């Protein structure tokens, strides 16, 4: 099995590492902060992050330094950083580990980002269910505050950064950055119409950056070891650094694997995750969380970087890789995800709100063998009419399970419908005409 240097998970893999401030400092923690605050100009920090090629780990993969650069230069009022710790994308569980096991790494990243963008306040929006994670973070903030890494006049530099943990309360959509801001403002988590973007009108209408936990955790390393080092990892120039891939489903060793971007799915599944659970052939996988279209065994050699996965017709997304073995019903799998999206649609946009319920009901009917062949056309139409027509990217996400399974495993749908038709010959009472 090829071995790679761990970056984000390195500390926590040390035997006995607790994630306490002491442990973190012993592994060189907060050195980046010491060497940067007041010593490197904020714009240069942004410059370095741009140069590193770091792209957002939350899903969209937007270049982090470029995003920071969108903040108005001459704006005098407050600015905010929001750390997106909502981690709600099914198949994703990396931020949880980063926060629970090495919270100071995240906090150091947060302070560095605040310094770069001129924010004095940062909120960590953590998904409500992660009670443990929020406690660990709060404890760590307390430690860091006591040690002078957080708060007023950090290490005597005159720089102020306050960090608070804000718990969500159960809504996937609040991972979407503008819904997150609405939620943080105490409102319903409905995505905002863009433009304006958070960079100019974010939290409380002030310039704001939203970055994912993993994105921020990379910052201390980039600043300590240099952008060139970071840019040399993975598949430069567009996909640099490592990714913490979350492997779930039918593998022997599901879990988080930090690997350079650009490793193949085959390597991830068969070498790192121990191969298939029951040694059955792999039937399908999702490369980047529930929002990413399903791929097939034909794609096992696709490199896990932004461009390659996109070229294969899916997306790297949040790095959640879910593996399914031969024998799994793809219609069922798509329905399971569709049910998730139906449950989580915020209800703002008509196509998404009404479409998700329509799609779920149709899928349930097909699974229940009450489908009809024209349902497939309806499904396709509905998906097309949702995608690209909504306020946020949820609309695009929710159709990908159905669209991709219809594309690769259409015959499974047809089989169910045929079974439905023949079943109806025997059991006329269960015709699809119940509606």
């Amino acid at each position, binding site marked *: 099995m090829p071995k790679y240097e761990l970056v984000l998970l390195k500390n926590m893999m040390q035997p006995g590492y607790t994630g306490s401030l002491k442990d973190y400092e012993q592994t060189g923690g907060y050195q980046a902060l010491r060497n940067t605050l007041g010593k490197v100009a904020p714009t240069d920090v942004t410059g370095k992050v741009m140069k590193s090629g770091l792209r957002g780990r939350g899903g969209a993969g937007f270049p982090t330094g470029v995003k920071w650069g969108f903040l108005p230069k001459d704006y005098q009022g407050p600015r905010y950083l929001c750390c997106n710790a909502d981690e709600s994308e099914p198949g994703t569980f990396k931020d949880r580990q980063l926060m629970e096991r090495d919270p100071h790494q995240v906090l150091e990243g947060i302070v560095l980002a605040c310094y770069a963008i001129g924010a004095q306040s940062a909120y960590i929006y953590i998904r409500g269910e992660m009670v443990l994670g929020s406690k660990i973070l709060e404890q760590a903030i307390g430690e860091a505050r006591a040690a002078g890494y957080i708060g007023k006049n950090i290490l005597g530099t005159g720089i102020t950064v306050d960090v608070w943990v804000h718990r969500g309360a159960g809504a996937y959509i609040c991972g979407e950055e503008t819904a997150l801001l609405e939620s943080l403002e105490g409102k*319903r988590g409905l995505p905002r*119409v863009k433009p304006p973007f958070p960079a100019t009108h974010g939290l409380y209408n002030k310039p704001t950056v939203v970055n994912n936990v993993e994105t921020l955790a990379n910052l201390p390393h980039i600043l300590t070891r240099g952008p060139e080092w970071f840019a040399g990892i993975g598949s430069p120039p567009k996909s640099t650094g490592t990714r913490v891939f979350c492997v779930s489903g039918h593998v022997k060793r599901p879990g988080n694997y930090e690997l350079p971007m650009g490793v193949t799915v085959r390597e991830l599944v068969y070498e790192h995750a121990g191969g298939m659970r029951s040694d059955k052939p792999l039937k399908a996988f999702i490369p980047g969380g529930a929002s990413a279209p399903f791929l097939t065994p034909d794609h096992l050699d696709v490199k896990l970087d932004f461009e390659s996965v996109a070229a294969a017709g899916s997306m790297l997304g949040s790095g959640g890789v879910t593996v399914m073995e031969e024998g799994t019903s793809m219609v069922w799998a798509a329905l399971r995800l569709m049910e998730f999206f139906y449950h*989580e649609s915020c209800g*703002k946009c*008509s196509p998404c*709100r009404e479409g998700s*319920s*329509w799609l779920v009901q149709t899928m349930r009917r097909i699974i229940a063998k009450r489908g009809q062949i024209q349902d497939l056309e309806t499904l396709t139409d509905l998906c097309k*009419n949702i995608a690209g*027509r909504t306020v946020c990217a949820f609309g695009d996400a929710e159709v990908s399970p159905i669209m991709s399974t219809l594309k690769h495993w259409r015959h499974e749908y047809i089989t169910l419908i045929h079974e439905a038709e023949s079943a109806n010959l025997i059991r006329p009472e269960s015709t699809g005409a119940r509606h």
Partner: protein
Amino acid sequence: MPNQTADMVRVTIDGMVVSVPKGTLVIEAARRVGVMIPHFCYHPKLKPDANCRMCLVEVEKMPKLQTACSTPVAEGMSIKTATTVVNDAHKSVLEFILANHPLDCPVCDQGGRCDLQDFSHQYTPTTSRFAETKRIFQKEYFSPLIETQMNRCVQCLRCVRYCDEVMDVKALAPVGRGTMTEIKHFGAHALDCEFCGGCVQICPVGAITSRLSMYEYRPWMLKRADTICGYCGDGCQITVQTKNNQLIEVNSAQGAGRNNGDLCAKGFFGFHATSHPERLTHPLIRRNGALVQATWEEALEFIAAQASRIKQDHGGQAFGGLITSRCTNEELYLFQKFLRLAIGTNNIDSSARYGHMNAVQAMQRVQGTHRWSVTFEDLAAADVLLLVGTNITETNPITGLKIKEAVKKRQAALITIESLQPAVGTISNIANLSEHHFCVAPAQITAAVLGLLKAVVEQGQIDKDLTQRHPQYVTAVTARLQSLSWPEIQAATGMDVAAYVAAAKALAGGKRVVAVAGQGLLRGERGYAGTMNLFDLLLLTGKLDQPGCGLAPLTEENNDQGAIEMGAAAEFLPGPSTITDRAGRDRIANLWKEEPPPNHGASLVEMLDRARAGILKAMFIVGENPLASLPATVRVGESLTKLDLLVCQELFLTETAALAHVVLPVCSSLEKDGTFTNTEGHVQAVRRTVEPAGECCPDWEIFSALSGLMGTPLEYGESREILKEIRSLIPGYGSLGPSPVPTKVERAAIDRYLAQGFESDLAGRYQLTAAVSQPDGTVQVSLVQSLFHSGKLSTRAKGLLQIEERGYLRINPQDAARFSLADGNRVRLSNARGEMTTDVKVVDRVPEGQAWFPNHFSQDLNRLFDCVIDPDTKVPSIRAASVSMVKVS
């Protein structure tokens, strides 16, 4: 002037090129070239939310379809709204929206004027592909006036957004999430809000409808007529809809009138006063002590005979006339002409005296005009607004919306001097939006104005130009202010120097500053003095004559402004010009072919005194009910019963009318033609929307008939002819166009005031009112407007009675605790003058130590009040009294 071309962008819409201001939304730009882009969630009043996705269009160079409602135009943009792709998108969104829609159009009140119906028709989807079970919401009782049918809801949230963004009420909540989102209100009880009807009006489908007219009509059966609401001085345009001469509903079209289509509960739900079963429908004559039905001939001849006899025996001075300023300009004009010309007296008063006379006198004195120098548009565009004693939501709700617009949409700085605490409640509270709030007792509102003045002077914020041109004014006022001490001001108002300094700084720094004075100031004991001081504030800061700046006193009744301008006051001839003004008298003499009486007339209280003394023998009372609205100390009953002739023109048999010798039934404002002049001075057409009840006729016809019978015929074929005559006195009156051109302040008048005019009462009005001690067990009770009523007429409107059916004493939570009171408890209020019992309501916004009682339910409470008359303006002030309060079981 902003650079026209730099602020305009050129865009192409479906091949048509149009120039629009930068920032215009695509949907609005399209409308300019006649292209209607289908939409549900878009509304010009609301911030774009782009949730329905119905308005998708193609924008060149953009990969995805864009929502026209949220995309601002950019120079050179090319937009296509009618391509196959766009059409398919519209169809598909409609398909989604219709999927869960119940399609119950046959039983839906919106059927026939429903956006969803219209768009469905336009895109003719043949059959629904949606074969699943439709979502069903549990039917829930919403409120007595508003009905919800959530299965019809398209989740555009226009109602919720309107309730928040425009009204600032925030009563509606989208509850739940996803497809199960429904619009609700909080709590297990019925909806409790401002009942502005905005949600009913703004709902594009039939999800929210009015219960007052439920199932009574199909839109195409209704006859519509535009007129002006008769309740408050805001003067909203309403569209009255009738079916077979039955009032069915009232609404106001988006963009219509000075109200821009917004209404309050009175406008929207208050129209049933007109169709109340107790309306008077026949003339009544007192025979053998009882009022009995008579014919018009009998009644009019009786009056004419009596009046002629009294005139013969005692002269014109034995007559008095009182008219409500709810009448049309034409009626007000003819009333005073009748009294001045046919009877020969200047003993004329109207209800405008209570609420508006102080302001008119102050305006005349300082700026030489008698009306606003600003418009509603100026309020909305102001950058600093000073509200003094307005309680604006309750008193002038639509003017309040302009203030909210300035603050919420344009970030104007709001300074408020109000007897009002910031607190969230079921109706909006202007103090919540205030940046500098001075919560003071009603009697100390003027003290807070003085505090602001003192801060302006001490902070060196006096206009330089003024100091140069009128040093003696500046010196005199400064000296007066210096003699006031901060500790005294602080003791009187409870606000510290820093608060005054901060507010004064904001005020002086403003470019477009409007001061708005309301009944709390204008009707107070020191209403005139306080208004004068407000003028000084605007003068000292150099604002008064600047564009977009001015003083805007709010009128309470719908035609207070018109009543003064029509000369329905002892001291004013039409114009108005003062009774002694030579030019004014000549103009009138010219037109009337006779001089109006020369001597000073009596105001209402003076008339009543004279009646009691037996000097005044006859009174014409039109639409007023002094017996019920004046405190007992004025002894109205005693005066009226002494009269030889009391004629009342009324819609209902009021307490006063019950004492009359003759009662004449008259039209409500929905039953007649004419004009009203709203608070900003805009003259608007009032139209007959239903046939009069019974034999009712417009008030002016009565004056016209009586004058004929008395030998001085004032003949007019219709009210327009009276308006024509008014216009010959006041050129242009009533044809001011869609938005009023405000009268400019007269520089010469201002100079006169600054040179000398300011002096006469300077000492008096630059004085603090001693803070009254509040003995244990007492509260300061004051009469206030309620949002849901206006005068006594509204208490006959069944819709409004469902919201507020009687008067409650509203008290502060601390006082409630102090007196061990809770909602619904009964209390006895008493003072040296008398006592009454009532129920209490605990309301956070009432300041501690105070208690509010709605003045349209105040008959019993009036006993407890004293009446103080302003020596300069004769305005009776009857608003506050100290009473002890005890709980009764």
